[in-house]
């Protein structure tokens, strides 16, 4: 297996405050990887650095062997690197449908926008019902669905989720579980950043644990789940 996305010695932060202190992480093609860690350790910051919302200070981000760390955020979706961001970041004043259309703006996804629309409406029938409602007036969970659906519209090669399950009803969590397996079968590479450590570790193949801006542990998800420190710190056992 080769690493589709390879992150080496990545450092970044906000203003003068450094948050990431040399992160190494790689996503193997077709694998579902999860990144877990406590509150405020820098998971979101890592995703923001990968997408280019904030600039890396040092280190490299390679995609398909090509350095992409310096590229501005808007160039990433064209390559196939897509993020479903924390806090959803919807276009609140646009309709549900327009939000989905905006997901498919990159050059790769445009051609299949219609098909993909069908697909995400299949996955989230509730969105179909709310197609022309202003996104800002959706319920919290509906907004989360829309954010995930919009990410899928981009036809990503690497799809990263920041807090995928946030605010979703159990029934939907189960559905999404199925969906992720399905996407994996279709060959999508995914990175799941989660607080819901149980859930994350149970669905993914490989896992990283982050603390204070560094990766402290990695390995196959099942093994990581058995580590004592993980059990103590994150699983509340």
């Amino acid at each position, binding site marked *: 297996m080769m690493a589709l996305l390879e992150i080496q010695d990545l450092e970044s932060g*906000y203003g003068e405050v450094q948050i990431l202190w040399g992160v190494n992480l790689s996503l193997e093609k077709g694998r579902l990887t999860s990144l*877990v860690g*406590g*509150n*405020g350790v820098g998971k*979101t910051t890592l995703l923001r650095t990968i997408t280019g919302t904030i600039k890396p200070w040092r280190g490299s981000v390679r995609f398909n062997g090509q350095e992409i760390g310096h590229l501005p955020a808007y160039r990433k979706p064209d390559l196939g690197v897509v993020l479903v961001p*924390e*806090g959803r970041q919807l276009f609140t004043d646009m309709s549900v449908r327009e939000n989905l259309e905006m997901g498919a703006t990159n050059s790769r996804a445009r051609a299949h926008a219609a098909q993909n629309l069908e697909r995400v409406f299949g996955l989230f029938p*509730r969105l179909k019902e*709310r197609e022309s409602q202003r996104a800002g*007036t*959706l*319920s*919290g*969970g*509906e*907004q*989360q*669905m829309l954010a995930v659906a919009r990410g899928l519209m981009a036809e990503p090669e690497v799809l990263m989720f920041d*807090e995928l399950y*946030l*605010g*979703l*009803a*159990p*029934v*939907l*969590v*189960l*559905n999404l579980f199925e969906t992720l397996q399905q996407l994996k079968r279709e060959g999508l590479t995914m990175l799941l950043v989660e*607080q*819901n*450590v*149980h*859930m994350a570790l*149970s669905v993914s193949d490989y896992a990283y644990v982050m603390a204070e801006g560094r990766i402290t542990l990695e390995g196959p998800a099942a093994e990581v789940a058995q580590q004592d420190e993980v059990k*103590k*710190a*994150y*699983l*509340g*056992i």
Partner: protein
Amino acid sequence: MILQVQGVSKWFGGLKALSQVTLDLPQGQILGLIGPNGAGKTTLFNVINGVYAPEEGRVIFMGQDVTGKKPYHVAHMGMARTHQIVQPLNELTVRENVMVGACFGRENHNLNEAQQIAEQVLEFVGLGDRADQFAGSLNVAQKKRLELARALASRPKLLLLDEVLAGLNPSEIASMIQTVSAIRDQGVTIIMIEHVMHAVMRVSDRIVVLDYGQQIAEGSPEEVSKNPKVIEAYLGDPKLAERLGRLSHD
């Protein structure tokens, strides 16, 4: 009864987000409010604390009809809430955010008192070391705690918690549950919207389930979790639900 919701309905255009919702809440209880996404839970909070006026029905808080009263009116009477989608006062410090709650809530404190209350409450929710930071620079999980701190600082009689557990990891959830219980033990009545089932089941005295704006079930956690309508609409397939239950109870 500290709160009575009597036959409340709320429309958004053609959508009936709440339909004849009725519930009574005795003092000192924790009521769990669950239901699928878009069921109308947050909308019910908005009606209870005056953000929306309902088209039908009445809301009675501490014996007073507060239907259609402004949010600050009920806030002064002792109702506080947190937001599912956080609403920090970004360019104020964390401490000032909490002081707003203390100053304008039920007890109407002056600035000095409010500052002391803020310090206490921030310690309590674990934001003590961030008091001087601008609220805007917190991350989402921290902002959620800030929401709780602001609500607590107003020394409420009734606390509406909208998904305070979302985004916390299991050990944090465990500590938050203790926090919530501790608040209840101080005599505060709580309504809690949650999707983290094992947590709701553990702390709630009673649970109300909404689906498409309708109350589809009400009862003790035990009763509700066995209710087939709830399993179908909310928990999903019973077998998966069971597995989920195991996962959460490990």
